[in-house]
């Protein structure tokens, strides 16, 4: 009885210490989570704060006269030499008749994006009847005016320190009071390729480049990775070679990505003669990069299949192939997909290896295939972040938002597919 009591006392004496340890540990865990959430919140907040305005573009309303003398002197519209910009210029001049000097006029013309002329051309191509008539159109302003309207350029600072002059500010104010200025959804951001002019620059080129690249990657890395994992787990003899291969695969997963880029440059471009800057080569390099991740995750998923299922199938007389494809694959597939999506996410965000294979170029055209020159989203982010124009700052953030959105979409698809396939046992 006395002994039992002393045991109880000892246990109770230690109890408080145990509880305190538990509380401290819980607190640390909570703090760690909170720090993570705060950082994530700050990141998203700053990103959206910076980038949200890039999804809008300031437009100005102009009354253009499609004079046939300027656009089609001999009665037929000349799509190459016709002075579409002139139509815009005269529309502006009509708004500000008192602007006369050559320099002042140039400043006036700088209010409107060079895209305005193309807009007039497109309108006329679509509806040639407009020739000789009048039309009221909304055209994008230049990036500097856009920045000014969005409040990203402070009109209060010294004129020499900002890209818009005092009189340009005055004109914009006048246009605003006349109700000719409006911010609209920035479609150019999603329909255009890269451009030197921020208001014309879009991410479609980079987005398509990334899509083509990831298509190549998933088409190669998933089947090869899963096949390798199944072979190594289910069929390969367990010997020294298998160990060597395993060690190498694990090491490959940790190789810096730029090394894969060098490999791609040496093998795919220099030796195999594949085109530079092509999503095909990018995809090949990224599949090399993601293969180890997929193999490791798939092997873990296969190992996680309960051995009882394997035994049950073998016990009924299923062959190895049947065991693998009827039982192990369906049960391991969710895990394999998880590995694949982790690999693909890494591939999507990778820019270093793409530098080596020339996917860091300034490419205006949206790629239409696997061998067209292209960039990728992270590379586009890098290129824009490097640009001096003020308007590219918000576009950089916008590109990051699109990149994250793409990532989220990809993960979501994988989660949905995985949920559908998941089975309980």
């Amino acid at each position, binding site marked *: 009885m006395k002994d039992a009591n002393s045991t109880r006392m000892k246990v109770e004496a230690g109890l408080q210490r145990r509880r305190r340890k538990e509380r401290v540990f819980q607190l640390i865990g909570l703090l760690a989570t909170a720090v993570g959430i705060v950082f994530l919140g700050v990141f998203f907040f700053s990103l959206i704060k910076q980038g949200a305005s890039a999804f809008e573009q300031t437009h100005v309303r102009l009354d253009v006269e499609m004079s046939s003398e300027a656009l089609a002197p001999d009665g037929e519209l000349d799509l190459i030499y016709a002075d579409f910009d002139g139509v815009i210029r005269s529309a502006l001049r009509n708004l500000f008749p008192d602007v006369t000097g050559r320099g002042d006029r140039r400043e006036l013309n700088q209010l409107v994006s060079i895209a305005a002329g193309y807009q007039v051309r497109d309108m006329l191509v679509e509806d040639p009847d407009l020739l000789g008539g009048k039309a009221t159109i909304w055209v994008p302003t230049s990036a500097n005016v856009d920045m000014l309207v969005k409040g990203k350029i402070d009109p209060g600072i010294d004129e020499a320190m900002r890209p818009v002059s005092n009189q340009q500010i005055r004109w914009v104010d006048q246009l605003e009071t006349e109700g000719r200025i409006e911010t609209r959804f920035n479609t150019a951001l999603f329909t255009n390729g890269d451009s030197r002019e921020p208001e014309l620059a879009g991410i479609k080129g980079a987005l398509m480049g990334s899509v083509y690249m990831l298509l190549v990657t998933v088409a190669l890395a998933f089947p090869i990775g899963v096949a390798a994992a199944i072979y190594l787990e289910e069929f390969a003899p367990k010997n020294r070679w298998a160990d060597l291969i395993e060690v190498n695969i694990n090491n490959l997963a940790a190789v810096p990505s730029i090394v894969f880029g060098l490999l791609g440059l040496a093998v795919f471009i220099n030796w195999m003669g594949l085109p530079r800057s092509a999503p095909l080569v990018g995809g090949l390099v990224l599949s090399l990069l993601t293969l180890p991740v997929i193999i490791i995750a798939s092997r873990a998923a296969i190992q996680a299949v*309960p051995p009882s299922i394997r*035994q049950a*199938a073998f016990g009924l*007389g299923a062959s190895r192939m049947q065991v693998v494809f009827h039982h192990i694959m369906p049960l391991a597939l969710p895990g394999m997909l998880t590995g694949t999506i982790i690999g693909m996410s890494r591939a999507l965000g990778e820019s270093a290896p793409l530098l080596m294979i020339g996917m860091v170029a300034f490419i205006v055209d949206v790629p239409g295939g696997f061998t067209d020159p292209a960039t990728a989203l992270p590379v586009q982010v890098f290129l824009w972040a490097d640009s001096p124009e003020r308007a590219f700052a918000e576009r950089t953030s916008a590109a990051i938002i699109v990149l994250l959105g793409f990532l989220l979409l990809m993960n979501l698809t994988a989660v949905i597919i995985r949920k559908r396939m998941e*089975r309980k046992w």
Partner: protein
Amino acid sequence: MTMAAMSELDVNKEPPVSPAPVEEPVDTTRKPDARSPHRPVSGQLTELLDETVGNVHCDDPFMTARDVNVYYGDNHAIRNVNLEIGKKEVIALIGPSGCGKSTFLRCLNRMNDSIDTARVTGDIRLDGMDIYSKELDPVALRARVGMVFQKANPFPKSIYDNVAYGPRIHGLAADRAELDNIVHTSLERAGLLQEVKDRLDEPGTGLSGGQQQRLCIARTIAVNPEVILMDEPCSALDPIATARIEDLMDELSEDYAIVIVTHSMQQAARVSKRVAYFHLGLLVEVDETDRIFTNPQHKLTEDYITGRIG
């Protein structure tokens, strides 16, 4: 009162001359106690011999194992086991944990093949055919020698698909109707049809433990094997579910040879016609169940069945 306790009492009756070394043997499991009045008349064997006592033969042998040795790497798990398994008989393999009874069971349908380090020597024949010959595909063997495992392991598929899996992969049914028929008959023979006939498309993993094990038995007999190996099929089940499976084994023994590994003496006594006692990889004794439980020839067998080891 057990024999060991009695003989120990005998020893204790004699006052020790000195308190220190006890000269009288106390370890009665190793040496015969000449004074014990319970010593069997025939002279019970106590040494662990390479020879199996009792009778390894049976009238109508269907599977025969000769000089079977199994090694797991350097570990000699089974030593020179000889055993015959009759047609339509239930034979129970008993013995303490790690004695090799499950290993031996797994030799009979080559489930040890999947363990890389396992090596089997000797000769095991199924109806005269060497099951370890190079030409024989274990797939064909396992269709004839089915297995039920310790833990019920239904596939994460529907009840129907669980039972239909074997016939499907072996192409036993020509059409859907025939497959339906096989599934129903198998479930009925496993005594499960009444409970599940309205929910054949529900997952087999949703059944209770006992039902799952009967589902596994149904799945095994759907392939129509000639021998069924059972590795402690009731160890995870409650007494009611156990009783059902034991009844089932009784019925199944009319058509199949059943080899069951069990830790329950009562179960071995209830279901089997013959019993084989394994100890440290040796097959110590084989005999008719009645004789094993009433008059074991070997001391180790007796110690085990009376609960002194194991």
